[in-house]
């Protein structure tokens, strides 16, 4: 009875009319047969399904997954984030400096229509402040780079 069903399924299989479920049934049936118990006319097909089964279990070597993850640039992703963070810090620091009130206010009143005022009257002092801000940002950036290099 069971064998008749399998032979029927095999006929459908050769006609490429079986469903995936029916093909799984065939493969599972052949796999479950004890060695030497099959009729010669079915034995050859057992080898065919064993071949497919073996081929479907081939897997890549160990460490393949981590190599892929390395290849898709998580480090670069992190570096990109670091650069963006450094740029943000720089922008914030520069904004703070530029919007800071002047230490030596001039006698002249600030025009009401003016949104931004100079923070430094002395160009040397302004340059020194910008250099200081850039130095802070540079130190943070280098710390981040060191962390990456040490990993």
């Amino acid at each position, binding site marked *: 009875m069971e064998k008749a069903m399998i032979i029927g399924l095999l006929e459908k299989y050769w006609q*490429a009319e079986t469903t*995936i479920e029916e093909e799984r049934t065939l493969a599972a049936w052949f796999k479950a047969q004890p060695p030497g118990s099959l009729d*010669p006319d079915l034995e050859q097909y057992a080898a065919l399904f064993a071949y497919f089964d073996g*081929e479907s279990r081939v897997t*890549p070597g160990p460490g393949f997954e981590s190599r892929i993850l390395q290849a*898709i640039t998580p480090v670069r992703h992190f570096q990109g984030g670091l650069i963006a963070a450094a740029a943000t810090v720089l922008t914030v620091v520069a904004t703070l400096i530029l919007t800071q009130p002047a230490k030596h206010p001039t006698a002249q009143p600030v025009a009401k229509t003016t949104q931004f005022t100079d923070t430094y009257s002395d160009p040397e002092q302004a340059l020194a402040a910008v250099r200081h801000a850039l130095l802070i940002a540079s130190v943070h950036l280098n710390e981040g780079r060191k962390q990456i290099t040490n990993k």
Partner: protein
Amino acid sequence: MSLEVFKGRILPMKDKLFRFAFHLLGDIPEAEDAVQEVFAGVWTKRAEWAQWNSIEAYCMTATRNNCLDRLRRRRVPTVQESSAHQLISPDHDPHEKMTSKEMIQRIRQCMDALPQQQQFVIRLREMEGFSYNEIAEVLDMTLDQVKVNLFRGRNAIRQALTKKEQKWKKQ
């Protein structure tokens, strides 16, 4: 976010893609390289993932194309015999094992001798359990072409098996 999607939905396809690449290239390190390249390519296109109908179909197609390019460069489009396969159950007795091994060897030779499209269709169907629609998408074929290739490929193997069987019986 993209990395989570990659790890959760794309990375689990690695074995399937590797098998496909390995069957096309017949070389484990090269198959791994091919799949790695495919994943790197998919990652660079992460902004487009939402627009793809099927990430799996895209990956399979990219793997096929990558392997075909490699084969063209190599100019040796034959699949080598793999020594990495342990296909026979250890429960079989030595004679049984020998006979099955010979038969499987013949099946492999027959598979390798099939036209490339028939090989692709059979591998995706028999080893990866793809539906006809999925095969059609990956291989850029119509459903009828998929069925015809599967029919012809299976029957070529059947004939080879039957011939061998008859030969053995005569001996």
